[in-house]
């Protein structure tokens, strides 16, 4: 436990700003496609509206369906505590917490999938199957990226990999780390159900991947799931910022300012990708993820080759 003030503030900043990051992405997309678009803070209004409503549960569902939304947010919060959001130390740090990070997200997804299957809807089952397929491929790239960071820093906690000692290794491994950043961004788009993999704005159940799984959730449950997705985007975005901009030498205030600016840039990046790219056909998605993984593999080979 490292409850230093900057770490706590950075954590709260990410929790509070998360819906705005998703809002920036949507806003960028609407501006680039010449539409007026919803306000940047629309997700906050949506969450507020949903929280005040009651929830409707199908008679075929069990406790899993009611439990899943809480667990989704809880696991993402857990994952957020092991990421050094302020650029130095995470709230919780232990040896091998990178694996905990990956599987906390995995556990949340597992329960989301169970809840989708629990409704008995065939559309939701289809979405669940696609989501799990893509997620298993994301893992390859994620762990190759972690492996590269481990080789670079000789640390096996995320705080060690991305926190204070990390900056020393940047100059020697700049090319590999830029590739890791690119790989993580590609994985973020897949993990957060963004455009080349999934389209958050689609209205047809057959083409949905992530969105179709949450069709039966309503009221506060839906609010939790929407907030969870936004939070996941923000946490993964913060991780990319930590890889690309080591902040250990900045003052805490400057570090948090960089984090906030970085999150906005990530949001804009996601929005730009959504505006200029069409969604990939489903059989093409594994190729996209394999491409991202080979990027990570290449950087791993590179740092093993040149362990300076």
């Amino acid at each position, binding site marked *: 436990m490292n409850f230093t003030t900057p770490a706590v503030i950075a954590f709260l900043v990410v929790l509070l700003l998360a819906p705005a990051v998703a809002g920036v992405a949507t806003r960028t997309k609407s501006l680039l496609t010449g539409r007026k678009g919803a306000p940047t803070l629309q997700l906050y209004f949506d969450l507020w509206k949903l929280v005040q409503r009651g929830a409707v549960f199908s008679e075929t569902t069990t406790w899993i369906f009611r439990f899943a939304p809480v667990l989704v947010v809880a696991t993402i919060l857990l994952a957020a505590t092991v990421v050094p959001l302020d650029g130095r130390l995470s709230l919780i740090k232990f040896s091998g917490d990178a694996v905990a990070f990956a599987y906390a997200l995995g556990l949340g997804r597992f329960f989301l999938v169970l809840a989708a299957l629990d409704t008995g809807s065939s559309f939701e089952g289809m979405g669940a199957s696609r989501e799990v397929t893509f997620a298993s491929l994301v893992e390859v790239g994620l762990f190759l990226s972690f492996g590269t960071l481990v080789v670079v820093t000789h640390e096996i906690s995320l705080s060690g990999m991305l926190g204070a000692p990390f900056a020393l290794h940047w100059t020697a491994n700049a090319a590999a780390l830029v590739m890791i950043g690119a790989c993580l961004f590609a994985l973020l788009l897949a993990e957060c159900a963004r455009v080349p993999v999934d389209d958050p704005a689609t209205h047809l159940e057959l083409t949905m991947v992530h969105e179709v799984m949450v069709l039966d959730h309503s009221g506060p449950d839906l609010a939790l799931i929407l907030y969870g997705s936004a939070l996941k985007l923000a946490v993964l975005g913060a991780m990319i910022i930590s890889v690309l901009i080591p902040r250990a030498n900045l003052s805490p205030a400057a570090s948090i300012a960089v984090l906030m600016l970085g999150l906005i840039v990530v949001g804009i990046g996601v929005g730009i990708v959504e505006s200029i790219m069409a969604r990939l056909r489903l059989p093409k998605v594994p190729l996209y993820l394999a491409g991202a993984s080979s990027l990570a593999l290449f950087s791993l080979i590179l740092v093993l*080759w040149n362990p300076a």
Partner: protein
Amino acid sequence: MTHSTLQLLLLLIVLTDFAVLGSSRLSACIRWIALQGAVLGILPLVTEGGLTIHVVALAIGTIFVKAFVLPGFLRWAIREAAIRREVEPLVGYMGSMLLGAAALGAAFAVTSTMPESARGSLVVPVALVTVMIGMVILITRAKAVIQVVGYMMLENGIYIFGLTLARRVPFLVEAGVLLDVFVGVFIMGIVVFHINREFDSISASKLTELRES
């Protein structure tokens, strides 16, 4: 400075190798191989030894041939012969990508057993990767046009390898550039003989069945 620029350019070459492996459109493949040609042209400028007229001429010649003339030829071939714009691989894109990743591992593994002088920089492993991925493309793609792209990549790999010797044996490098002429002739062959018109296909797998009946 020069050293890190060299590393960066070599990484770009590997990334273009993979981009060609993963692209499903002929025009995209040609665009990537043109980019690779341009990066390749800059390479001799940043290797140690400083700028001499010989090196600058080599760079300009390479960029002109590899980034403009040959890709231009290929685009013209596609347009003239009205070839379908997809790659249509024999081994799927996913499989090719895995083969490419295996080639990457093999190249670095092989280089690590080489003498000290070869292990100093990324030049040798990148040359090997480019040669191997060029081979993968030659073997796994059925269309003649994309096989030419694979051949060009193979030749690019040999060129990178020759770069390690460029100071001592400039002739070898120039011979590499001359090999490009052969590629040019190869492309011309596709168009001039109008394989497509004669046999309704430029798929190399069908060329084995040519016989008078």
